[in-house]
């Protein structure tokens, strides 16, 4: 983070890269600081008047405005956008790899990868010949809508496709930041505690879909999946579940069916408006 104002540039701000691109050690964005010289004060005396501004402004407004802009772009191009969130290590990237490998001949996919550092995840997706952009958030713990906006511009997506946005692995911070996605998907694995939904309720509250991954490990781990689901439903009674193993492929069909139905639905929703004079 920038030591002067804490604004996160100087190499620690978000860096948006395609696989193969180099990371520049300094940001291209110009970043001005007040360099200590104060504004010259007038010699003549005048009264400083206190003024109260009742602004009532939502703090997340900037993020929400750009998220709405992203959402409008996705709708216009009939792109179904998913925001994948989870704690680190629950298998977001593995789930993504399996899904892309199995469905890429049927559905055009695009991927945005969010991590604090490295191009590793983007390289894994790139190996499947799927267009991908990596966002490195530096010290940032979540993606924000302006980063997605910039990444989307680089992706040059075609119409009628699916965009997968893999958020930074973190079950807390990304919950507050709308990226403009069509649906939010929270992934939890069977190696995590069944009470995670009530320990980290905000993420489950704001998600539409809950994927329970690593079900192939169920014989070896001490978790009650029904209890996990009940906790999740307590937080968000509208959650829809998929139980899968990205490693063995178990349960993936139901998830694929849902993905395909969403893509088709998005297509049929496209308005055929005729203007009458």
């Amino acid at each position, binding site marked *: 983070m920038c030591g002067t104002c804490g604004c996160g540039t100087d190499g620690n701000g978000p860096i948006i890269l395609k696989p193969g691109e180099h990371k520049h050690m300094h940001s291209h964005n110009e970043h001005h600081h007040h360099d200590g010289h104060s504004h010259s004060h007038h010699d003549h005396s005048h009264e400083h008047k206190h003024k109260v501004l009742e602004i009532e402004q939502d703090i997340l407004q900037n993020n929400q405005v750009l998220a709405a802009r992203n959402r409008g772009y996705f709708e216009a191009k009939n792109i179904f956008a998913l925001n994948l969130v989870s704690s680190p290590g629950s298998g977001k990237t593995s789930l993504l790899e399996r899904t892309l490998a199995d469905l890429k001949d049927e559905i055009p996919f695009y991927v945005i990868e969010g991590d604090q550092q490295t191009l590793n995840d983007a390289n894994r997706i790139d190996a499947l010949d799927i267009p991908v952009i990596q966002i490195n958030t530096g010290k940032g713990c979540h993606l924000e809508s302006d980063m997605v906006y910039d990444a989307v511009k680089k992706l040059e997506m075609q119409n009628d496709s699916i965009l997968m946005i893999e958020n930074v692995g973190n079950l807390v911070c990304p919950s507050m930041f709308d990226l403009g996605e069509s649906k939010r998907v929270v992934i939890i694995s069977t190696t995590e505690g069944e009470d995670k939904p009530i320990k980290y309720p905000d993420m489950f509250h704001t998600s539409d879909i809950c994927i329970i991954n690593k079900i192939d490990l169920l014989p070896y781990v001490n978790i009650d999946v029904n209890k996990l689901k009940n*906790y999740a439903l307590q937080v968000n009674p509208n959650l829809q579940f998929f139980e899968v193993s990205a490693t063995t492929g178990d349960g993936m069909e139901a998830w694929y069916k849902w993905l395909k139905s969403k893509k088709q639905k998005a297509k049929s929703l496209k308005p055929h408006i005729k203007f009458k004079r």
Partner: protein
Amino acid sequence: MHELSIALGIVKIAEDETAKVNAEKVTKIELEIGVLSGIEIDSLNFVWKSAVQDSVLEKAEKEIIIIEGRGKCIDCDTEFDMENIYDCCPNCNSNFKGILKGKELKVKALEVI
């Protein structure tokens, strides 16, 4: 630590609003934060000093108005206080509810000079 992003968002709002009225700095800022908003007040206080450094908020007094959570059951219409986002209806135990209050995250007012 998304509180840093939130604090920087507050600084941006304060900078913009202060510039609009040609004021020099903010002497007091009033924030409204709901208990269900997902913000830890302690974490916000922790990052505040570094977030406001060299901004119009550097010397501002910060007042946080905490908004308690309140929900309304969709099944039986009971209104009830909420401490957690997963609290169920005390009357019928339903998890289906609308959140009436407690999600606020706002800059309510600025006193500028």
